[in-house]
């Protein structure tokens, strides 16, 4: 017990120490979080009228971000499978970073849902025993359950791996392996359930398509890993952890396959709607070409299409995949492309035109944008805190001392300047 307490105290010392760059980064995030909190206070004071949502478009930017971030959380499983099922060493060393990204993404998801609901003071109505969770009828109840399980699962796995590494011990397979294996279907379940949340609504033909859940999974395996690739490079550059090229290229290759499936499924959907040309075409027509002179989403969705197709080719061709300039361009294109396609591009056309044919053009207000910015900053803040502890552990700069109780902290900087890093490795 005392050992765990000392470890915990050690992590607190770690997160409060760092270079100037680390402090600057954290303080800027805190400022953005404060901006978001102010926006939320304003929204609580005045009601959701300060958003651009109305009865016709009753879900908007918050739920779009939520949907996208459920996908980002998939990053973990794409690393877990090669690392632990196929025991591929280059990825196994860094899989914990993916799990931590999943934790951060899940926290952001829960925050986006919280700021979207009209009565956050009644959140306890969702807790079984105290309130009433309408399980299994409501897909939202399912989502509450699977998202929380996934959050806790990834947190436990990540903390456990780190703690074992810190103690210079191997994870206990009887405890660890079942959890890792369970995290794979759990990742699939959060996407499936979130897709079903929309999919099950017969009132909204744009969502009521069986292809939605497979599309969700395919696009999730693009956006999350694309984010991971960029992060890996940043982490590798500014900290002492080593991430091998082959790990990064392998992830990029997996993205290419996922993007192909994503584009194929989207094509199947587009064909069915446009060729059959029923009244259910209206939302898709609104998305891609506009409807009766309303075309807010058109430039965005075409941007997303161009980005996704370009990125697909960049990741497919080995020469561009293994060139860091084109690889990073591809990652940014995918992240932005999927953010549009699976965020606003998925949520808004489900509601436009509305069930009685009315077209209300939704565009988020400043309050919505600032609040979302604050939540993104919170996500980065949490992820940085997790990395601040995990990376020194992985590099052997934070470990239990010879007495087996007191922690030893070698890394006091975390984010270093590159020349400084080179100097240090020279000294080593």
């Amino acid at each position, binding site marked *: 017990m005392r050992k765990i307490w000392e470890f915990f105290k050690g992590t607190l010392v770690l997160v409060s*120490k760092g270079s100037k760059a680390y402090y600057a980064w954290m303080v800027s995030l805190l400022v953005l979080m404060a901006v978001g909190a102010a926006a*939320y206070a304003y929204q609580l*004071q005045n009601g959701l009228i300060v958003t651009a949502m109305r009865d016709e478009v009753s879900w908007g930017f918050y739920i779009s971000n939520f949907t996208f971030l459920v996908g980002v959380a998939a990053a973990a499983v794409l690393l877990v499978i090669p690392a632990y099922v196929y025991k591929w060493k280059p990825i196994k060393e860094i899989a914990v970073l993916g799990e931590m990204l999943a934790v951060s993404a899940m926290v952001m998801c829960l925050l986006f849902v919280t700021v979207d609901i*009209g009565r956050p003071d009644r959140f306890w109505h969702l807790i079984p025993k105290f309130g009433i969770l309408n399980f299994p009828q409501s897909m*939202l109840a399912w989502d509450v359950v699977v998202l929380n399980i996934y959050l806790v699962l990834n947190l436990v796995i990540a903390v456990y791996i780190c703690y074992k590494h810190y103690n210079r011990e191997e994870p206990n397979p009887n405890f660890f392996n079942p959890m890792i294996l369970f995290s794979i279907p759990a990742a699939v379940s959060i996407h499936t359930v979130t897709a079903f949340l929309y999919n099950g609504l017969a009132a909204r033909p744009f969502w009521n398509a069986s292809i939605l859940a497979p599309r969700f999974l395919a696009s999730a395996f693009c956006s999350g890993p694309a984010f991971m690739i960029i992060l890996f490079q940043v982490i590798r550059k500014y900290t002492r952890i080593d991430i091998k090229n082959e790990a990064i290229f392998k992830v990029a290759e997996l993205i290419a396959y996922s993007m192909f499936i994503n584009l194929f499924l989207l094509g199947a959907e587009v064909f069915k709607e446009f060729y059959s040309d029923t*009244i259910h075409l209206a939302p898709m027509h609104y998305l891609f070409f506009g409807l009766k002179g309303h075309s807010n989403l058109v430039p965005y969705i075409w941007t997303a299409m161009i980005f996704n197709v370009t990125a697909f080719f960049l990741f497919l061709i080995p020469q561009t995949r293994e060139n860091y300039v084109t690889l990073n361009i591809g990652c940014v294109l995918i992240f932005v492309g999927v953010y549009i396609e699976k965020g606003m591009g998925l949520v808004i056309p489900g509601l436009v035109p*509305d069930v*009685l044919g009315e077209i209300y053009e939704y565009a988020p207000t400043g309050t919505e944008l600032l609040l979302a910015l604050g939540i993104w900053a919170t996500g980065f803040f949490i992820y940085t805190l997790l990395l601040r502890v995990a990376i020194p552990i992985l590099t052997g700069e934070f470990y239990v001392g010879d007495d087996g109780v007191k922690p030893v902290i070698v890394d006091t900087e975390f984010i270093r300047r590159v020349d400084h890093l080179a100097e240090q490795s020279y000294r080593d």
Partner: protein
Amino acid sequence: MPNEGVRAVHAHRMSRRKMMKGVAAVLGALAIPAKEAPASVWDAFFQKNFRELSKEDLDKVLARLEKEYSGRYGKAVKVRATPPIEGVLYGYGLDLSRCIGCRRCVYGCVDENNQSRDPQIHWIRVLQLNKERGVDLEEAEQYYNPAKVPEKGHFYMPVQCQQCESPPCVKVCPVQATWKERDGITVVDYNWCIGCRYCMAACPYGARHFNWKKPGLPAAELVTETHYLGNRPRPVGVVEKCTFCIQRVRNTPGRYTACVEVCPVGARKFGNLLDPESEIRYLIENKRVFILKEDLNTRPKFYYFYAT
């Protein structure tokens, strides 16, 4: 080294204190009652779902609400929770050949059911349709505004809650804040709804409306005879919908809804589907009725028909 450790821990304590302050501020903003708040605020916060209230608890809740509303609006407000009448299943008929699109029903409903005037919430929406296109919702116009209705070449279709036998909105609610009563009316517990708006996404008829801000309801216009599940004043951040004027039809058996009463052309019919002698049963038997979006299998108890 030990000094540094102490400093770091101290810094951590400082940040934790700040964080706790932040948490307190957020909790305050969330309107979670403070320690010194009156007992009634705590009662409201911890109130159970309507269907789980015992008789005594329900009486207390109704008394608390009456006191709250009477204080807020400066006149005596009655809040009842009259249960369904046995052997009654409400049904509604709307004669499209008579409706002239005057929207008196829209405002009659607003007056009776204490909807927000600012911003305006309408439980009934009247669609202007082209005669040559028939019931084509993609061509519907809600914001028609000519000097005189009806306009040539058009007919009108009011849409409100269709009181489905198989309501998709009820199924999706994550907290069972909305349900179908034994007399067929789908209701919302405004004190239990968390405002997630999933029901609004699920409703195929646009029947559900959200209180995007604190409802603006002038005291002078408040109707004081109310029902817990119906026209009592609503809080901000919850969903509301047509209840077939539950306060009228349950408190005074046989009474019409406000929209039926106000319709100048007699296009609206209302009655008990289980009573073979009722007007609604007569028109189902003798006219040719249709329901909206029958392919969705929601089985509305709201029948459209053309009488002439």
